[in-house]
């Protein structure tokens, strides 16, 4: 019941929002609140699988579900303030809620074809939101996003077909493409087909995740979409796409082919860091800068997964941190974009400027924020695995990215402004969300709550990792 409600309530909410003439923001907040309450229910007791085990929740799914649901509630509060300033249009809230429904489906699918359906749903639901401004630039962004994502999604479907082929002749009790049966019968999977499936799933869902070199849609899309949509993509959509890759890794690990899966994961991770470092430096647009920073962080996610061991736990922790910090930064950057000439932001909009400053330290992995811990965990795993050169490269690239992000953001925050805007009155709705996320990023850096730590180590355990 609970599992069905998690998908159906936002889906019905999307239809309901379309019928409502006004007050879309509050509708969004109430739907998101109900959704998060349901997720809290799943924390108390994991609900039983439904639909012959096609829909079920495990630790990994619950992590992603919680991340998406929390971020969505925060974004919904922001949307209240946003929709007071800008015309949202009839479908705005509907598409957001449709995204939540599809993302919930991804998080709780244990049938890999169903997971793919959810992933396609998230892709389509976000497209109209990217095209929100309906001008030439957003048109270009949405076209790039759709073409590249749709090819990625098609390759992921082919990978799913390969996986079904790897299962071979199905005996009784061996349900096709159901995760539990894939993992339990992993030894019988045909290795060549399984390897092919892993590669296609990695490239396909990696495109949605925005790993380099399939990241080219990311800066344009994040740059042109409304800030709250970018926040949802950088924190929520990436979590869903990462889940797709994690599921593939789960099966490959169970089949004892982890040594095959690691090199491509590491390669994509490192390449993403290199690309991020190359494009962050000298970047002049804050949202494009944040997009490249997102390429960096998804690179770290697969890097941790590829290292295995403690790195897997680091990846899970990084997933949570990434959603918080990216949400914080995009929402704060959205506030800055409301000011005509945002240079010297700390004077023109002190609260938004301060939030952006906090976000700057959080996203570059400075203590005491959560990303410091997760990046440290991943680095420790890299060193522990004896990959000294990878560790050195990662450290150097992180330092470069820090310089790039800091120089651009400090210029934005403190830079001299020839035409300073008078200090603006900042809407509380637009500050509440990023403030909550900043607090969350700080809490995760000081002390990870016990239940969360337990859940993260369970999720890492399912992926063959261990807890530090």
């Amino acid at each position, binding site marked *: 019941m609970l599992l069905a409600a998690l998908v159906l309530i936002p889906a019905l909410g999307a239809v309901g929002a379309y019928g409502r003439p006004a007050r879309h923001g509050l509708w969004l907040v109430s739907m998101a609140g109900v959704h998060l309450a349901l997720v809290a229910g799943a924390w108390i007791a994991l609900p039983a699988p439904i639909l012959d085990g096609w829909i079920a929740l495990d630790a990994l799914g619950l992590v992603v579900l919680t991340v998406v649901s929390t971020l969505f509630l925060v974004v919904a509060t922001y949307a209240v303030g946003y929709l007071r300033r800008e015309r949202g249009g009839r479908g705005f809230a509907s598409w957001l809620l449709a995204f939540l429904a599809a993302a919930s489906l991804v998080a709780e699918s244990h049938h890999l074809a169903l997971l793919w359906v959810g992933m*396609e749903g998230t892709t389509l639901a976000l497209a109209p939101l990217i095209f929100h401004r309906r001008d*030439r630039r957003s048109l270009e*962004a949405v076209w790039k996003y759709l073409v590249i994502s749709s090819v990625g999604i098609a390759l992921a479907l082919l990978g799913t*077909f390969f996986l079904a082929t790897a299962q071979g002749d199905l005996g009784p009790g061996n349900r096709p493409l159901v995760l539990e049966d894939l993992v339990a019968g992993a030894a019988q999977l045909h290795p060549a087909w399984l390897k092919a499936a892993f590669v296609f799933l990695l490239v396909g869902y990696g495109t949605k995740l925005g790993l380099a070199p399939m990241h080219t849609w990311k800066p344009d899309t994040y740059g042109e979409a409304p800030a709250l949509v970018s926040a949802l993509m950088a924190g929520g959509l990436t979590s869903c796409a990462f889940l797709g890759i994690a599921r593939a890794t789960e099966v490959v690990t169970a089949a004892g082919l982890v040594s095959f899966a690691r090199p491509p994961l590491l390669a994509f991770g490192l390449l993403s860091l290199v690309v991020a470092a190359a494009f962050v430096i000298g970047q002049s647009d804050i949202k494009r800068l944040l997009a490249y920073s997102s390429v960096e962080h998804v690179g770290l996610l697969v890097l941790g997964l590829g290292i295995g061991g403690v790195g897997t736990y680091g990846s899970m922790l990084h997933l949570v941190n990434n959603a918080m910090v990216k949400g914080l930064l995009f929402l704060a950057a959205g506030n800055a974009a409301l000011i005509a000439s945002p240079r010297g932001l700390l004077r023109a909009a002190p609260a938004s400027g301060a939030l952006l400053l906090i976000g700057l330290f959080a996203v570059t992995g400075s203590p005491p924020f959560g990303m410091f811990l997760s990046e440290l965990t991943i680095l420790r795993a890299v060193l522990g695995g004896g990959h000294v050169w990878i560790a050195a490269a990662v450290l150097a690239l992180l330092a470069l990215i820090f310089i790039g992000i800091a120089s651009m953001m400090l210029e934005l925050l403190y830079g001299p402004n020839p035409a300073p805007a008078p200090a603006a009155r900042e809407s509380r709705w637009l500050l509440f969300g990023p403030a909550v996320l900043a607090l969350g990023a700080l809490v995760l850096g000081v002390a990870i709550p016990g239940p969360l730590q337990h859940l993260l180590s369970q999720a890492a355990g399912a992926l063959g990792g261990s807890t530090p």
Partner: protein
Amino acid sequence: MEHLADLLLLLVLLTCFLILGTTRLTTCIRAVAVQGGLLGVLPLVLHQHWSLHTLGLAAGTLLVKAIVLPWFLTWAIREAAVRREVEPRVGYIASLVLGVAAVAAASAVATRLPVPGNHPILLLATSLSCVIMGLVVLATRAKALIQVVGYLMLENGIYIFGLMSMDRVPFLVEVGVLLDVFVGVFIMGIVVFHINREFDSLDSARLTELTD
């Protein structure tokens, strides 16, 4: 029936090459419509025992891939007054050579992997060839509409692969229909963009305003 299946698959490959080699957009659309028709007949040939499921799949595929989408593409050409040339970034001869390389690579892979469910090797080879040639069209053609045709080829390749496991895995081939939603969105997008007069042409190579 085996020979008939082989014949159908060879015809599918021929339509792929036709798309790679032609200069005219309308020829591309006709070729992809014929391809859709061939794919509609394919499940009937591969599965001798015609169940309701097989018949439904064949009818649905024919309707969507051979009639609705090609008609939609033709409508888009008329509506958006697209010029009829394909405008490749890579020459036609080079495209055809790439196509041959695709078939060679796909056949090499297909002979090394076990074909599921005792289907002919040609089925696997054709499926992978279609996927690769679709990607070639997507990467080497400048016009948005012909890229949609490339996407359809890619999708058809995935569909052929799905046919091999349709007996073992329920709903798997049918899931592929969701890819057609993308095709629909693309075509709608092209037309809407054009009606809005945001673009002077539908050249996706002109979508280059966003750079670093």
